[in-house]
């Protein structure tokens, strides 16, 4: 491959001088090179294509009886010629994987498109109802798409929020602060723990990790009551810390980070050690820069959890409550606030989805190592 690219670049330089003629040459050389490349680039050796040809022949013969017999002979010859050509210019059908029928694929694609539409519909509907003016929200029969979309609901929402006793800015600050502090601390502490769990063997390490995987199953509500008791004993009720500090130790982040770090070559760490690096140095200068995709994954899971945190049980001062809490109060405002409630949904939904879209490839890279070995 590198050969051809070299050729083309060289030819390109010549092209500037000779124009049309060189252009022709380039095409020829590249085509030849591509053909050469394609021949060994087959999925399998002789057997499978032969089988496919056979099925094709059978299919043709099944269609053939309708045609007069005389035409059959030249037809076959023609087909043979085509076959000879095919070894060079492969038709699309041969590049397909075996075990895949066109009918099956088309059926699956239609099925997928239908399901995707069903899945996405509620989200579209939420956005549409946020754009509808109030009279359209209560129209019979209701329409799915807004007839004359407005942004009134959003501006109403901000008017309501700015008129509230605690200013909108404060709610926003609370949420952003909790999200930011919780995520930063979580990223730091979880990667430190994940580093030693993944790369060193020491007594208790494996057991600890097993406990972490079990703890992934427990939702916040289940541990809510004892958590409240612990918080009150520590005197952390009604402070930001009651939300932030438990978020540091969320098991999901440690789990993903540890699995991802196991993929790093151990020789990298050993080399650094031989060069005299301390453990801290290895962690901060070698391991952390190499697991950047996992950072993003941890960040998105943590942000998702904290951004939607209502903090309604552990924080009771109004000026420390979070944005989702304030938004839900508006949502609970009854029929007059239906439009604003829809706007709230959109505002709360946009942030996590946007973060996910921007970091999708890194997240998927991390999740590839998320498997649980027993």
């Amino acid at each position, binding site marked *: 491959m590198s050969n051809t690219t070299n050729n083309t670049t060289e030819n390109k330089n010549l092209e500037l001088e000779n124009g049309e003629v060189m252009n022709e040459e380039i095409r020829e050389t590249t085509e030849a090179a591509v053909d050469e490349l394609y021949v060994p680039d087959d999925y399998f050796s002789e057997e499978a294509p032969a089988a496919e040809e056979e099925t094709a022949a059978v299919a043709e013969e099944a269609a053939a009886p309708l045609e007069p017999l005389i035409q059959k002979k030249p037809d076959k010859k023609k087909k043979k010629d085509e076959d000879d050509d095919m070894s060079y210019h492969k038709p699309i059908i041969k590049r397909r994987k075996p075990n895949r029928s066109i009918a099956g694929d088309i059926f699956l694609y239609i099925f997928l498109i239908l399901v995707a539409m069903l899945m996405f519909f509620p989200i579209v509907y939420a956005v549409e109802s946020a754009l509808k003016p109030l009279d359209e929200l209560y129209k*019979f029969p209701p329409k799915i798409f807004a007839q004359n979309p407005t942004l009134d609901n959003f501006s109403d929402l901000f008017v309501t929020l700015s008129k509230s006793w605690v200013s909108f800015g404060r709610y926003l600050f609370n949420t952003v602060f909790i999200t930011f502090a919780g995520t930063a601390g979580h990223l730091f502490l979880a990667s430190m723990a994940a580093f030693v769990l993944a790369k060193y063997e020491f007594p208790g390490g494996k057991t600890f990790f097993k406990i972490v995987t079990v703890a992934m199953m427990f939702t916040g509500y289940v541990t809510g009551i004892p958590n409240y008791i612990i918080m009150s004993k520590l005197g952390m009720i009604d402070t930001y810390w009651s939300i932030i500090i438990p978020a540091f130790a969320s098991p999901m982040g440690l789990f993903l980070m540890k699995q991802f770090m196991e993929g790093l070559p151990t020789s990298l760490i050993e080399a650094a050690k031989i060069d005299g690096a301390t453990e801290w140095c290895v962690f901060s200068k070698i391991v952390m820069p190499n697991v950047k995709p996992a950072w993003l994954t941890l960040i998105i899971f943590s942000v998702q959890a904290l951004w939607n945190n209502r903090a309604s049980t552990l924080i009771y001062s109004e000026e420390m409550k979070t944005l989702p809490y304030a938004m839900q109060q508006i949502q609970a405002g009854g029929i007059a606030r239906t439009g604003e409630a829809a706007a709230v949904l959109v505002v709360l939904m946009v942030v996590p989805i946007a973060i996910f879209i921007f970091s999708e490839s890194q997240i998927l890279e991390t999740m590839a190592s998320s498997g649980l070995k027993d």
Partner: protein
Amino acid sequence: MSQFLNDYIKVKKHNFRVGVKKARISKNCYLFLAPYAIIFTMFFVMPVVISIFFSFTYYNILEAPRFIGVQNYISLFLEDDIFLISIKNTFMIAILTGPLGYIGSFLFAWLINELPRWVRSVAVVIFYAPSIAGNCYVIFSVFFRGDSYGPVNAFLMNWGFIDTPILFFTNPAWMLPICMIVILWMSLGAGFLSFVAGLQGVDKSQYEAGYMDGIKNRWQELWYITLPNMKPMLMFGAVMSITQAFGVCDVTMALCGYPSTDYAARTIVTHLFDYGFSRFEMGYACSIATILFLIMILCNKAIQSFLSRVGT
């Protein structure tokens, strides 16, 4: 016998000494682990221990806890009818939505695996978005609204299927099915992402070897090659879907109200919430939490032993 015991103790002692020595060598490891481990123990392990402890007491926060043995469990199963309803509801939701969501996650991850790259990333966003869309599920309360302005009722009335609107969230017959639909809609979560990523990582040469060995269709390919390769991800997905299936309460509380009509949408977690945060009977609530822990761990074990047989 005594000889055997002596040897056993000797080996144990030796192992312990080796462990201590190893621990001393890897002091730094403990230093690295310590900050996370302390917080984790405090807020994730201690709560479990504490709730097991309080489940044997009567505790209402104001008075000191009073030890009452297994009285809480006895009254849970023999006297508390609502708890039995909540167990029934939780199991119905878990049994229907858990496996369906799990299989669905895998199925869609598998189906979109062969799409071209950019189509795949769009598809991942579309399928994954519902589970991260904040409290977007509230939109279903508009969708299934009990008056004739709700789209579903309006549609049914317009076409003459019904003449009075169905009260979807106040009629016990409709509450659970609709909640299940909503939960299924949200069930393509972290497990789904793990499957998508894992399928990309399956070694392609194994498929080629499979074709040579006579694998005929995509189902055989799935069963003999893909699934065994995906086992670790399947395990992870199982943990995720158990969490989701048994932890249901946000959706039912937001849609059907709290408390719901006839307790028809009450789940274990809602019941726990009721006793813990409304009635402040902490001991009782802790016994509910303990039962939930047990159910989850047993379920996890069952699924693990089931998954170890996949692809054989």
